C-alpha cells in the first residue's frame, strides 16, 4: 500500500508557528496543546483523504475527540479556579480561624476575670460579672459570621467539584491511583506511621466511653481479637 505524501496547509502552518512562538515565551496552556494537536491532525487532511476511508474515519473521530476535550478543558475554567476560587476559600478559612480564636480569647479572658473577681464587695462583684457576661455574649456573635463564611466556602467547593467532575466524565476517567509528589508521598507516609488522622466525624469518632473500654480491655483478649480473622477474611478463604 502506498501513501500520498503529506502536504501542510500554509494557513495551518501559520497557526502552528504562532503556537510554537507562545511556547518559546512560556505561555502555553493545556488548551493550547490540545489545540495544537487538533491543528496537526487538521493540517494532515489531504494526507488522510488519500488513506483508506476507515482509517480516515478513525482519525476524524480523534480530531473530534480532541476538539471536544479542548472545549471541556475550557469549560473547566482552570484559571478562575486557581486564581480566584481557591485563594478566596483560603482567605475565608483564615478569617474563620482568626474569628474563632479572637472569640475564644475574649470568652476565656472574661471567664478568668469572673474567677479572679473579689467577692467581698457584693455590688462591685455583681457589676464585674454582668460586664464580663455581656462581653461573652458579644463574642459569641462570631458564630453567625462563621456560618456565612462557611456557606461561601461550600459554594466555591461545589463549583470546583462540578467542573472537575464534568471534565473527569468527559475524559472517561473517574477512578485511578492519585499521583503524589515526593513531598506529598512523604507527608502521607508520616501521617500513616504516626496515625495522625485528625478529628473524625461524629459517625466515625469513638466516644470517651469506648476509649475507656479499650483502655481497660484485657491485653490477651485484645491481641486475640486483633489476630482473629474478620468475616471478610473467612469469606475470602471460601471464595
Amino acid at each position, binding site marked *: 500500500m502506498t501513501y500520498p505524501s503529506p502536504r501542510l496547509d500554509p494557513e495551518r502552518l501559520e497557526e502552528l508557528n504562532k503556537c510554537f512562538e507562545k511556547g518559546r515565551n512560556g505561555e502555553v496552556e493545556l488548551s493550547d496543546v490540545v489545540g495544537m494537536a487538533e491543528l496537526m491532525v487538521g493540517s494532515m487532511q489531504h494526507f488522510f483523504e488519500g488513506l483508506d476511508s476507515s482509517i480516515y474515519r478513525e482519525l476524524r473521530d480523534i480530531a473530534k475527540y480532541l476538539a471536544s476535550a479542548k472545549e471541556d478543558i475550557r469549560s473547566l475554567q482552570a484559571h478562575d479556579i486557581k486564581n480566584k476560587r481557591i485563594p478566596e476559600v483560603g482567605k475565608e478559612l483564615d478569617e474563620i480561624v482568626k474569628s474563632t*480564636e479572637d472569640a*475564644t*480569647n475574649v470568652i*476565656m479572658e472574661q*471567664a*478568668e476575670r469572673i*474567677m479572679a473577681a473579689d467577692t467581698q464587695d457584693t455590688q462591685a462583684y455583681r457589676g464585674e460579672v454582668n460586664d464580663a457576661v455581656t462581653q461573652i455574649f458579644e463574642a459569641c456573635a462570631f458564630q453567625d459570621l462563621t456560618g456565612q463564611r462557611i456557606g461561601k466556602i461550600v459554594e466555591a467547593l461545589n463549583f470546583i467539584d462540578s467542573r472537575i467532575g464534568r471534565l473527569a466524565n468527559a475524559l472517561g476517567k473517574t477512578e485511578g491511583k492519585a499521583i503524589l509528589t515526593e513531598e506529598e508521598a512523604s507527608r502521607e507516609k508520616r501521617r500513616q506511621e*504516626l*496515625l*495522625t*488522622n*485528625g*478529628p*473524625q466525624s461524629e459517625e*466515625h*469518632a*469513638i*466516644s*470517651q466511653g*469506648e*476509649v475507656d473500654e*479499650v*483502655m481497660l480491655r484485657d491485653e490477651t483478649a*485484645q491481641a486475640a481479637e*486483633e489476630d482473629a480473622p474478620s468475616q471478610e477474611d473467612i469469606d475470602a478463604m471460601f471464595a
Partner: protein
Amino acid sequence: MPVDLSMPVLVVDDYKTMIRIIRNLLKQLGFENVDDATDGSDALTKLRDKKYGLVISDWNMEPMTGYELLKEVRSDDDLSRTPFIMVTAESKTENVIAAKKAGVNNYIVKPFNAATLKNKIEAVFGD
C-alpha cells in the same frame, strides 16, 4: 493514693488556647505548678531539665507528635515512669490501641470536660 496537687504538671499542645483551657481546668482542680510546651521536642527538653509528676499531651503536633513523645519518654530510663495522659482529637480505635501499646496511662478524646480530666487524673494515680 491521693493526687499530689503540688506536683509539677507539663501540658503539651500546639494550640495556645487549648493550653490555656487545660491550665484553667487544672487550676480549678487545685494544681498550681503547671508548665507548658508547644510540641514533643520542646516537651522532651523540659522533661529532661525538670522532674514532672504528670504529662498531659496532645497527639497531633509538629515536628514531634505526642505519640513520638510518649515513645521517647517510655524508652528513656530517667523518664519512663512519668505518668502520661493523652488528650487528643484522634478518635480512632487504632490510635487508642497504639497509645496503650506505647505505654500511655490514660486517654481523653477532645472535646472533653473538667469531670473527665479529673476522673482520668485520679484513675492514673489510683485515687
